[in-house]
């Protein structure tokens, strides 16, 4: 791990946090999923996992410590791992948009499972059903955002990373 990688993780996690906060007034519409998909396909698994860890830790500093922290520490690295596995087969933005949509649809279910470890399966089921409409919005908005922005953002990241690492040598 080079110093430039560590600095990059800080910059990208800050950008992710800023992007999340900028859209926080719209429930369940976010660009974090798009960012992590782009990071994974451009930076690779190791550096993207580092960004995810720094991002989640920053979230805890902002919102405080609670049971969602465990789910958060699992779900974003899990997205990185899934995208990393898919990236060998998927190259079009449609594939990633579908991945983002499924991620949004099952986001609530994932947290329902982690919450049910603390409060029991009945609470988990109620939590999931109660949030289904939010999951629907999350999945659809992820699909649209990724479909429209994956390619331009990917291109921008490729160019910026080339400059960033070339200027190091």
């Amino acid at each position: 791990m080079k110093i430039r990688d560590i600095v990059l993780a800080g910059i990208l996690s800050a950008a992710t946090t800023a992007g999340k906060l900028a859209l926080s007034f719209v429930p369940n519409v976010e660009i974090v999923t798009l960012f992590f998909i782009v990071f994974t396909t451009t930076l690779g698994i190791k550096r993207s996992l580092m960004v995810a860890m720094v991002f989640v830790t920053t979230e805890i500093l902002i919102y405080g410590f609670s049971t969602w922290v465990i789910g958060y520490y699992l779900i974003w690295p899990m997205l990185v791992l899934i995208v990393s596995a898919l990236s060998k087969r998927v190259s079009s933005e449609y594939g990633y948009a579908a991945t983002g949509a499924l991620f949004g649809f099952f986001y609530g279910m994932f947290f329902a499972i982690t919450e049910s470890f603390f409060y029991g399966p009945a609470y988990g089921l109620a939590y999931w059903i109660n949030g289904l409409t939010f999951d629907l919005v999350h999945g659809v908005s992820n699909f649209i955002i990724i479909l429209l922005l994956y390619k331009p953002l990917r291109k921008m990241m490729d160019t910026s990373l080339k400059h960033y690492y070339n200027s190091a040598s």
Partner: protein
Amino acid sequence: MNKKIIAIIVVILAAVLLYAGYQAFLAPKGTEGSKEVTIQIVIEKENINETFTYKTDHEFLTDLMKEKQEELGASFESFDFGTMITGLMKYKVDPNSEFFLFQVNGEDSMVGTDDTPIQDGDVYKFILSTF
């Protein structure tokens, strides 16, 4: 670009259908009409055990509790996930250690008051509890 617009329209239509399915089969439903319900509040440390009986046309419990807010001494806080009852009988919970356990007809409720449809004869019980 046209292909993308079509894909987006298809996904939105599918979401609308799924939402309609959710509303039809999964979302909690209330029944209109005059219903008689009981609200019991137990705050042991303050020796409070009050029971109120109301006739209402409201469909969900939060609406009834907000209407009777003064009598119930209730305070609420709204979050993304719904309304949280932060006080009853003018007793405010300590958010770091206390909450109101909510029971419907003697059983712990799986949902909050926002999603509890008012049914005739229901007994809603709020018990100050600690965690």
